Structure formats: structure tokens, C-alpha cells
């Protein structure tokens, strides 16, 4: 058995377990990048090169959109808490 | 078997010297080029390393510099011959500009790596340079962060580029 499919399958399994087990969401996104590496290697090992190029171009776009959502969520949570401590009726 | 190990070690040493010298000359340890590199530098200083070596490692993570240039030169030389190194320089320049970096270190590192591989092509085949670059990046980014950052900081101070 070749090395590339073996290591890609190992990387996919480790990344999947890591996405489930980690609790902080930046760690979840880092583990998602780890899983993407294994996925692109697994696509390449079956000689689908065009699919591999397209999916590796589209991968950072999905990561950037997830990160924008995470940043907006953190900012919103901070400001909401401060706002609710001062004016309790209007918050919820 | 022994001669393959010797070729691997020689190629690894050549790649290590090439990318550390080019990156240090173009001022990677001096300041964080992009905003994400500062976080990694501060974190490495907190666990007991050097701040300039930390900036170096953060800049390598956040944009393709001479380390990526050396790997891409070896890859394109393995696939296409000498012209591949020139194509790799153009692609690395575009990648540097996509990551908000002026791109001096990556392009010149790729050209010097291509010339070094061409000079060594009589007795070391290019696939040994691919594995040698992976070993070289493993000794900096993956083995022991504090010791590697102290080593990079001392090299930068010795070259006078802080």
C-alpha cells in the first residue's frame, strides 16, 4: 500500500476525532483545516487532479467565512453582556 | 543504503542554510510583516524563547517566504527541469502578494534554490532536496519551539539584521 492514501486516511480520522473532542471553536476550525489536508490528499491519490485544485481553491474561502462569523459572535457576546448589566429591561 | 542517507543529509543542510540566510537577510526577524505573526511571536516569547526568532517563525507560518520557495523550486525541478524553477518564482510572487507581503524574500529564495539544485544535479537527484526541505522545516517549526527560536535569534544577531 502506498504512503499517500494511508496517511491521508489517518489525517482524516484524527481531524474528525479532533473536531468532536475540542471545545473552543478556534480549535475546532484548526482541526477542520487539518481534516481538509487529509481530504485533498485522498482526492489526489485517486488521480482526480481538477477536483483537487478546485477544492483547494475553495477551502480558504469557507474558512474565512467561518472565521468572520466567529469574530462577529465574540464581539456581539461581549457588547451584549455589558449592555444588559447597565440597562436590564431592554436587553432581552 | 548508506549513500542515500548521506545524500539526504547533505541536501537537508543545503536547504537549511539557503532559506535561513535568505530570510534573515531580507529582514524577517526584525518585525512582524503581517498582523497574525505578532501573536505567534509573543506566545513563543512567553514559553521561554527569543522574540526575534518568534517573529521569524510567525512570518514563515503566515506567508510563503524563502522556505516555501525552496520547496517549490525542488518540486518544479523534479517535475519539469530547470525551467520549472523560473515558473515557481512567478507563482511564489503571486502567492506572496495574495498574503499581503512585498515578496522579495520568496522570489529571490526560489531563484537561489534553483541555482543550487542545478549546481548539485550531478550527484544529488532533486527528490532528495524535497525530503531535505521537509526535514529542515521540521527542525524549525515542529521539534522544539523555544530552542529553535533562540538559535534563529542568535543567527540574526550575528548577521546584524535585527
Amino acid at each position, binding site marked *: 500500500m502506498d*504512503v499517500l492514501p494511508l496517511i491521508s486516511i*489517518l*489525517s482524516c480520522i*484524527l481531524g474528525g*476525532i479532533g473536531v468532536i473532542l475540542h471545545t473552543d471553536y*478556534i480549535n475546532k476550525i*484548526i482541526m477542520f*483545516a*487539518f481534516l481538509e*489536508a487529509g481530504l*485533498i*490528499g485522498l482526492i*489526489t491519490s485517486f488521480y482526480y*487532479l481538477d477536483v483537487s*485544485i478546485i477544492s*483547494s481553491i475553495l*477551502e*480558504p474561502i469557507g*474558512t*474565512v467565512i467561518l*472565521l468572520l462569523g466567529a*469574530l462577529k459572535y*465574540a464581539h456581539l457576546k*461581549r*457588547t451584549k453582556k455589558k449592555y444588559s448589566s447597565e440597562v436590564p429591561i431592554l436587553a432581552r | 543504503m548508506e549513500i542515500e*542517507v548521506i545524500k539526504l543529509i547533505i541536501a537537508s543542510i543545503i536547504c537549511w542554510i539557503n532559506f535561513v540566510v535568505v530570510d534573515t537577510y531580507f529582514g524577517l526577524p526584525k518585525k512582524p510583516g503581517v*498582523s*497574525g*505573526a505578532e*501573536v*505567534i511571536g509573543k*506566545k*513563543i516569547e512567553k*514559553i521561554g524563547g527569543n522574540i526575534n526568532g518568534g517573529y521569524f517563525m*510567525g512570518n*514563515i*507560518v*503566515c*506567508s510563503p517566504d524563502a522556505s*516555501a520557495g525552496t*520547496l*517549490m523550486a525542488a*518540486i518544479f525541478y*523534479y*517535475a*519539469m527541469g530547470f525551467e520549472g524553477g523560473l515558473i*515557481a518564482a512567478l*507563482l511564489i510572487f503571486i*502567492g506572496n502578494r*495574495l*498574503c499581503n507581503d512585498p515578496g522579495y524574500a520568496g522570489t529571490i529564495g526560489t531563484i537561489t534554490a534553483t541555482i543550487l539544485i542545478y549546481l548539485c544535479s550531478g550527484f544529488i537527484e532533486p*527528490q532528495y532536496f*524535497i*525530503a531535505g*526541505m*521537509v526535514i529542515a*522545516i521540521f527542525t524549525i*517549526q*515542529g521539534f522544539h*519551539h523555544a530552542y529553535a527560536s533562540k538559535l534563529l535569534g542568535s543567527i540574526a544577531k550575528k548577521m546584524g539584521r535585527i
Partner: protein
Amino acid sequence: MDIVILTIGTIMVIVGLRIFLTRSRALKLPYVCCLNFCMAALIVLYIKSPMGALTAVVYFISSTISSNAIAHTIGEMKKIEKTMK
């Protein structure tokens, strides 16, 4: 088995386990960078053609953009936590 592919595979397994076991968020990113180097090298050693080299360089640059975005977001979140205290 070739010694080149075996060396890169061994390094990739070690780095993958260290990504999984490190606790800090910012110190996981250098290991991810090392993993990207290993995967690009394995792709071009599996497919020896100009198209394989193009696949490797496109994969490497786009994954570098991804880790750049993750590092920038960690810095921004630390800045938010510092100002909103």
C-alpha cells in the same frame, strides 16, 4: 520502499499527533504549517507530472492563506478581550 517517501511519512505522522496533543491555540499553527509542507511534497512524489506540481503549489498557497486568516483572527480576539474588560 523509497527512503524519501518513508522519511516524509514518518515526519507527517509525528506532526499530526503533536497537533492533536498541543493545548495552546497559537502554538498549533507552526505544526499546521509543517503538515502543509509534508502534504505538498507527498502529492508531487505520488504524481510525477507538471499537473501534479501545479496541484501542489495551488494547495500550498491556498492553505497558507487559510492559516494566515486563523492567526489574524486569534490576534483580533485577544484585542477584543483586552478592550472589553
